[in-house]
């Protein structure tokens, strides 16, 4: 995996020599973990409020999700090394090669960040969520009573059209989330890798041996970029709530 900023960190276990025990390696920076956690919370909350008729809250949650998505997409451009699209969106050769190794049960290079298949899964999830908030902005309910912040720019029929696809895309998103959870279960059960604790703590324990060679640990982005992405995300989120009124 290539890194875009900072130096490639060769893992030093502190003992001078290569350690035979699994050593903790930083994989996910705080912004990645934070946005991941918020995605879970906001999707559950959006689903719950919609199914309980709390549409005012559903729309507020949607606007919050817009903010987190923008934050995460910006972080994918200039965030920590493992958060970047340029690092985790790999070509078909890498994806097929990785899939083949998984299918044969062969060891893979320890992934610091998304593996070649997981990267595209993340892209699909982010894409589905982005599509979902865009449709939600224009959606109108069947009574014309509840409508998204931008629904006043479209006709009733167009708003109903958006609402229809908002419902369809939600099911697609659920499918992608299901796939995501299956992959986590696969790694836990078949390959004995705990991806959940890595997402919670930001660290993975990796057996460093002569086979694996040097490990490219996570390279963090400077804090000011975190501030910048957060401010932009928050601003757009609040602005969306007003229907993008200038």
């Amino acid at each position, binding site marked *: 995996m290539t890194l875009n900023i900072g130096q490639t960190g060769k893992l030093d276990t502190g003992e001078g020599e290569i350690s035979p025990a699994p050593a903790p390696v930083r994989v996910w920076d705080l912004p990645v973990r934070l946005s991941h956690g918020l995605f879970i919370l906001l999707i559950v909350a959006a689903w719950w409020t919609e199914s309980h008729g709390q549409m005012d809250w559903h729309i507020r949650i949607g606007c919050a999700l817009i903010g987190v998505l923008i934050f995460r997409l910006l972080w994918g451009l200039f965030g920590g090394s493992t958060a970047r699209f340029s690092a985790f969106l790999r070509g078909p050769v890498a994806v097929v090669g990785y899939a083949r190794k998984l299918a044969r049960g062969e060891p893979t290079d320890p992934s610091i960040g998304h593996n070649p298949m997981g990267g595209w899964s993340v892209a699909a999830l982010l894409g589905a969520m982005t599509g979902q908030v865009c449709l939600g902005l224009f959606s109108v309910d069947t*009574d*014309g*009573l509840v409508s998204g912040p931008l*629904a*006043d720019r479209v006709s*009733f029929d167009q708003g109903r059209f958006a609402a229809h696809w908002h419902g369809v895309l939600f099911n697609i998103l659920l499918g992608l989330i299901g796939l995501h959870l299956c992959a986590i279960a696969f790694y836990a059960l078949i390959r004995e890798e705990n991806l959940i604790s890595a997402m919670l703590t930001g660290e993975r324990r990796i057996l460093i041996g002569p086979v694996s060679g040097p490990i490219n640990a996570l390279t963090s982005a400077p804090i000011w970029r975190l501030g910048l992405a957060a401010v932009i995300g928050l601003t757009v989120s609040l602005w969306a709530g007003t229907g993008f*009124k200038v």
Partner: protein
Amino acid sequence: MSQRVKTFAKPASTGLCGLVLAAILGGLAAEAADMATAIKDRQAHFKEIGKATKAMVDQVKSPTPTLAVIQASAKTIDSLAPQLPSWFPAGSGPEAGVKTGAKAEIWTKADEFKKDAAAFAVEAHKFDMIAAGGDIGAIRMQAQAMGQTCKTCHQTFRQKDD
């Protein structure tokens, strides 16, 4: 001989049965078609209300509302609201075999349904009056009150929209 009678009788009775069956089926088909039309008309009426409501809500939510749009919408809703119970002839529920969000409770709890529909008509008329008055604060309040009567009725009597 008996065989002859049989050969004569058989087509005759079959024909008669066929006629009766055709009449029943035809009657059922006609009723089903009527119900399908009733449901289609009902959905068209509700869509008209929905369109007017959206146009009104767009303005009510706007910091610079156009009164004329609100007033036109209010007129439309007020003119349709009193007709609402007539859009639900018996048999146009889930048993009609056509996709409809109308629940059987509309007819099994007819009194409650009529009460809810009447409440909507009252609030819709009030909304029309207040819209004509042009006080946007009062319009916003009454839009809420009218919308609440929609929700109350839909909660009991309409299948949740998929």
